[in-house]
């Protein structure tokens, strides 16, 4: 069973990462959903007993009982993941309303253009190039 779970978890995670790298915000969210699914499955599958009857008292028969601890943790993870993803979806819609686009490439291009426009108005801070001016600093010590 071990390699089977591992492969499925790997597939979930890999597909998730692939989607995370897409420019489309919705695909990024889908990737996040897949990655958290992978995490949940990992949690569930890391129980000491992986399958059996539900851990509900009274226990009957000889069938082993599933590990309740990982179930409790997975429940928490599921609910939190759900909350986060819904906020992300709503945020996505917010981004669309503000920018009329859900494309990351497009958004960062616009952002860069705006930053450039801002910088054109103000002189750049000299902190940035402090170390490139070090030559002047160099000279002074020779005196």
């Amino acid at each position, binding site marked *: *069973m071990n390699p*089977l*779970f*591992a492969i*499925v*978890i790997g*597939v*979930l*995670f*890999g*597909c998730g*990462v*692939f989607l995370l*790298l*897409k*420019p*489309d915000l919705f*695909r990024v969210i*889908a990737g996040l959903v*897949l990655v958290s*699914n992978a995490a949940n499955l990992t949690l569930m599958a*890391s129980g*000491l*007993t992986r*399958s059996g009857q*539900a851990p509900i*008292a*009274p*226990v009957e028969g000889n069938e*082993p009982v599933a*590990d*309740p*601890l990982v*179930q*409790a943790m*997975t*429940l*928490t993870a*599921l*609910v939190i993941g759900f909350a*986060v993803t*819904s*906020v992300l979806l*709503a945020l*996505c*819609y*917010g981004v669309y*309303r503000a920018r*009329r686009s*859900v*494309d990351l*490439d497009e958004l*960062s291009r616009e952002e860069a253009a705006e930053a450039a426009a801002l910088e054109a108005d103000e002189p750049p801070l000299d902190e940035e190039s*402090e*170390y*490139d*001016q070090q030559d002047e600093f*160099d000279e002074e*010590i*020779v005196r």
Partner: protein
Amino acid sequence: MAIAIGWSAGGGGFGVAWAPTWDLRLAFELDGLAALYGVLAAGIGTLVFLYASAYVPRHLAHQERSRREEARLHGAMVLFLVSMLGLVMAQDLIALFVFWDLTAVASWLLVGYDRHNRDARLSALMALLVTAVSAVLMLVGILMLRAEYGTVQLPELFAVAQESTTVTVAVALIAIAALAKSAQVPFHFWLPRAMAAPTPVSAYLHSAAMVAAGVFLLSRIHPLIQLDARLLDGLIVIGLTSMAVGGLLALGSRGLKRILAYSTISQYGYVVTMLGIGGAAGAAGACFYVLGHALAKSALFMTAGAVTEATGAKALGEVGGLARRMPLLAAGSGAAAAGIAALPLTIGFFKDELFFKAALDRGNVLGALAVLGAALTFAYMARFWTGIFLGAPKGELRPVERRLIWPVALLGALVVVGGLVVGPFADLARDAAVVTQRGAVELEAAYHLDARAENLMAIGAYALGFALFASGRLLGAPLSVFSRLGHDLGPERAYNASIRGLNRLSNRLHDIEVRDLRGRLIAVVVPGAGLVALGVAVTPTDGAYRTGALPAADVPLVVALAVCALAALAVPFCRRHLLIALALSGVGFALATTYSLMGAPDVALVAVLIETIFALLFVGVFALLPRDVLRREARLRAPRSRKLRDAAIATASGVVTSLVVWSAFSRPVPREGMSDRLSALAPEAHGKDIVTVILADFRGLDTLVEITVVAVAMIAVSLLLRGKLRG
């Protein structure tokens, strides 16, 4: 004062367990060495505080800064003082390292006190980097010692350490940090730069404390250095080189504080040489030298500050003839300069006498070099003092507070008292040398009016020094060539180049990382995956990958898992958003089925609920967006290279995840019986389902917070969807 009393009472120590699991103790002991450096740090520190209370308000007034900034300097000075005292008393190398770095941080704050000034900032950074980066080497050395002997307690180390390559390398690493702190060649370049600090800071850090910490550490670990003669020889070479380089540069510079900075390099070169010579004579000489030098040098730094405040002059040639106008300052700094130049009737005479004696013990060549070094010292000290106080009066004289003058006079008086009544000073140094030497040390300091070798050497040094001083103008050109060469080929160039290179590298990484979300993700995922893969690669694979049993009853589980994997694989190939949402639901419901087959009805139930809401949410948001926005995204085709890159990253991370998860599942082997017992406990918590008992009872508070999170999230969602929140 308390330190002096404690020392005369025989010292003492205490230790508290710090991190017992690592066998770290905060062990402090006030032994002779700690007393010497502690008295210097606290005593001179007190005078410097007095001096600073007059100097800093003027300094701030010159720069039109608020008086309130005074507190920042004093705060950093106190931090420095405390960490210095901790450093000298620490008996645990790790504690020592922590205090060592604290002094570096305090020095960064102090040197960079004029933070509006770019040079001050760069200088502070340089002092910090040179001393703190080399401190990392020290930490490596300490950990090597720990790996070898299993302890970082100095007394235990001294007892067990044997000569071996590991110990030699470890001690050499620690010594490098010490030499960098003491501004020895080739790390000397930071000290003249650090003169950008306000003068009280220089008078303190760069005479008696920060740079003294380096030779202190060498003295502290001297029993370990003694194990390998090569280390001792290395110290002699570095010490002599620093003496020469520092002396020549001091003779060639004009800036008042810069001369003193080079002088400090050269003077600590003496100390390092003596520590390299070793033996009772070397140890005694080194300890006494530090004492004599610190008193005189801080007086000279304060003189430089007072002169600059009074006349505005910052370099020789801009000032002159102050002797008549500021007699007390002239007398005090004259005594101090005489102390550095080792004239009789000052404490400095004995420091050179001990130096000559130690050098002669090692042979005539070293003796001759010692005389040359002393001659250089005499020459630049004479040039410094006569340049300020003799000659034609120059420039306007502004009144200055008495507090700028009398600490100098006091230290000058101490230097002279030390020359007349050397006993207490010698005792302090001897007790310190005993710690260094781990054995009895005789320290004899007295005037002998006979033709013994030390006296002859001293006279030779004065004569040669006077000759050098008198031929000052002739020496100007070659000296400036020397400093030019040092600047063009010296280690500072390497430092600057590496700083610039690092800066560029960091800019490039920054550009890659923050360009967009994808870059940020890659910057996190790729190194993370690499580290994990490395961990997997180096972990022994024996028994790490178990297949485990696959009973016939689990076939439905396998089917559910297969469906889940297939659905997940389908997601990246979906072009239309609705299909993505459907495929995601497929994954989710398959997982819910899996959970239900794993004996987890609660999880399965919640998963089904959540997947249902998800499907609705996705579809709902898609419905809110205009068709063409989504359609444009769906039609977007990434370039082939990017597709391949993404696929490679995804595959790699998937494979690594599989491997890690597989090995995690393999141990411990699934055990039965545990869960049965847990479930049997449920009725005692007034429940039947142990999962709900865990959530509502054992982790009740967590669940409460979780509910809050969900509630907040739902409020955020509803606000966002109604367009009330704007980013």
